[in-house]
């Protein structure tokens, strides 16, 4: 059992409250507007909370915007980390700086990170962002599904402040059932597909839409296998390869050496050694 978020793009009105709440709890507001270190990251929020909406409106994810609402035609689509079931970033990180928690969120430990940015290369959704202008301690930035809030029994900030329930938080299985119910009840309204159910082995963020997902900017060419299996297939063979390769090379060396010895002995007219 792990937590997930269901985003219904047919409900979103583009108010940007989720963006403002995300900036608040992640300490990304400018100047002194955020009281991050003391209370903000764990404060209770609701659909009526007063938020800094003037600092929202980013088009793209960045180190300062871990959740954005994009306008695609007449549809608003929220983009943030998909929190894959078998995350690519977790598998590619050479030092294990990413971890999929049992509760659902994929979290990052900056102390381990050496900044190789393979996670950014590899993420099929292009989510992780980098603090390019920090000199000494640049970090990879991405949504952590408010893991610290979840640990305190709170919901992710973005789902708490949504006035229209476009993003709801719950157990993934419950949300899958909810999504299927909506598709069944209003078949004319929805495209009959839950994005995230199977993409790269399934994600903990699920999307519903009335228009093709390609039009929402979500990648539609993803396999249904978890991507880590693509590299593990090769990596898991390494011990065998090393053992066989070592034996093979050693064998060849022994044969060529022996042949040389024999040739030398025969040249000298003696018996075979």
């Amino acid at each position, binding site marked *: 059992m792990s937590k997930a978020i269901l985003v219904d793009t047919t409900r979103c009105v583009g108010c940007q409250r989720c963006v403002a709440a995300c900036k608040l709890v992640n300490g990304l507001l400018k100047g002194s507007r955020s009281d991050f270190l003391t209370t903000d990251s764990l404060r209770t929020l609701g659909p009526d909370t007063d938020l800094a909406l003037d600092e929202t409106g980013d088009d*793209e*994810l*960045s180190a300062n915007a871990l959740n954005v609402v994009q306008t695609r035609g007449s549809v608003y689509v929220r983009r943030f980390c998909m929190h894959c079931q078998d995350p*690519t970033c*977790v*598998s*590619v*990180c*050479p*030092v*294990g700086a990413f971890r999929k928690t049992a509760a659902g969120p994929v979290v990052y430990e900056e102390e*381990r*990170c*050496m*900044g*190789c*940015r*393979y996670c*950014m*290369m*590899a993420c*099929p959704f*292009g989510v992780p*962002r*980098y*603090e*390019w*202008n*920090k*000199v*000494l*301690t*640049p970090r990879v930035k991405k949504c952590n599904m408010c893991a610290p809030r979840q640990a305190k029994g709170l919901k992710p900030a973005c789902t708490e402040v949504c006035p229209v329930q476009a993003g709801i938080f719950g157990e993934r299985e419950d949300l899958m059932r909810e999504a299927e119910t909506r598709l069944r009840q209003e078949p004319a309204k929805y495209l009959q597909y839950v994005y995230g159910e199977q993409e790269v082995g399934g994600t903990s963020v699920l999307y519903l839409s009335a228009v093709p997902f390609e039009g929402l900017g979500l*990648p539609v*060419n*993803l*396999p249904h296998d978890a*991507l*880590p299996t*693509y*590299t*593990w297939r*090769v*990596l898991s063979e*390494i011990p065998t*390869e*090393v053992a066989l*390769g*070592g034996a093979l*090379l*050693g064998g*060849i*060396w022994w044969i*060529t*050496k022996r*042949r*040389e010895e024999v040739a030398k002995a025969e040249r000298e007219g003696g018996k075979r050694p």
Partner: protein
Amino acid sequence: MNLEKLPKFTFWRGVLVVILAAGFYSTLLRFTKGLGAATHLSDRFPWGLWIGFDVICGVGLAAGGFTLAATVYVFNLRRFHPVLRPSILTAFLGYALVAVALLYDLGRPYNIWHPLIMWNPHSVMFEVAWCVMLYLTVLALEFSPAVFEHFRMQKPLKLFKAITIPLVIAGVLLSTLHQSSLGSLFLIVPSKLHPYWYSPLLPLFFFISAVGTGMGIVIFESNLSARAFGRELEMPLLAALGRAMAVVLGLYGILRLQDLWRRGALVHLREPSTETVLFALEMVLGLLTPLFMLLFRRVREDREGLFAAAVLVITGFLLNRLNVSITGLEYSAHAHYFPKWTEVAVTLSMVGMMFLCFALAVRYLNVFEAEPSGEMRGVEA
């Protein structure tokens, strides 16, 4: 001051000074203002020239070392001995380039040692990190006899003679793993890398092409050093290497084409895209042309002809690696990347330093050995 003691000022030395000065400025920029100021890298394009060229090409160009070490010691083809030591030196310098480039490219270079204690065997990058560390050590050991000879240290020479074979075998295994793992790095991006280059066989392709290019590098560098240090060329040896290179290229070509065919990637040839141009360049200029040339004994035994073929093979190799690591990813990133001049300056400085170190090693150590005298003959790996 005695001006006659200063090195003569030649054109190439002038170029080197300019490059190193630009590289010095870029280094300051990188370590005082960060990656954002010193590169054109972005969230959409997190890897650029330093990874695509310095690391991925640098490792490949070092492939002459393990190819020849295996040829001489494992397959016991002793006649290739004269070109072995310079290839080991090139490989060592190539790997040093990789290690230094990583210090520039990593966001937190002071954490470069983390893979030693923080393990993630599911990560190809973890494998890469270990291969770089271990193989750099092996190469240093393989080249060390040249240093011991210089200082007439008999004891370590004897010691190394005893461990030559295990060392060479370890080197070959590590190289095999490392060359192929650079291809495996990109197995994780099936939806991002253009179908011309994405294949489940990437690790195999990277390995085979590295072996072929390794021979090309030996030919290339033998020519250059013959010119620079006024030495005789080992033409019959190089011609034999040219023939082996043709065999490897042929195998690579067949595998590559049947893979493209099987995956149906060749339909993209109808699209007049940048990718198509680059792919065609890579295949025609870097693979088919040199392969065709090398089929003729006249070309293989001709100094200029063989040199030209080797240059084409190396060019094809560089094109392939840059296509896989940079240009093949542009179409899915919806972004264009072109290195900032400071990135180029750092890369050129490092290549310049490689040439400089090579020249210094040739001057002070016994790199191109004449037949080594009996007692002094240690491990000439």
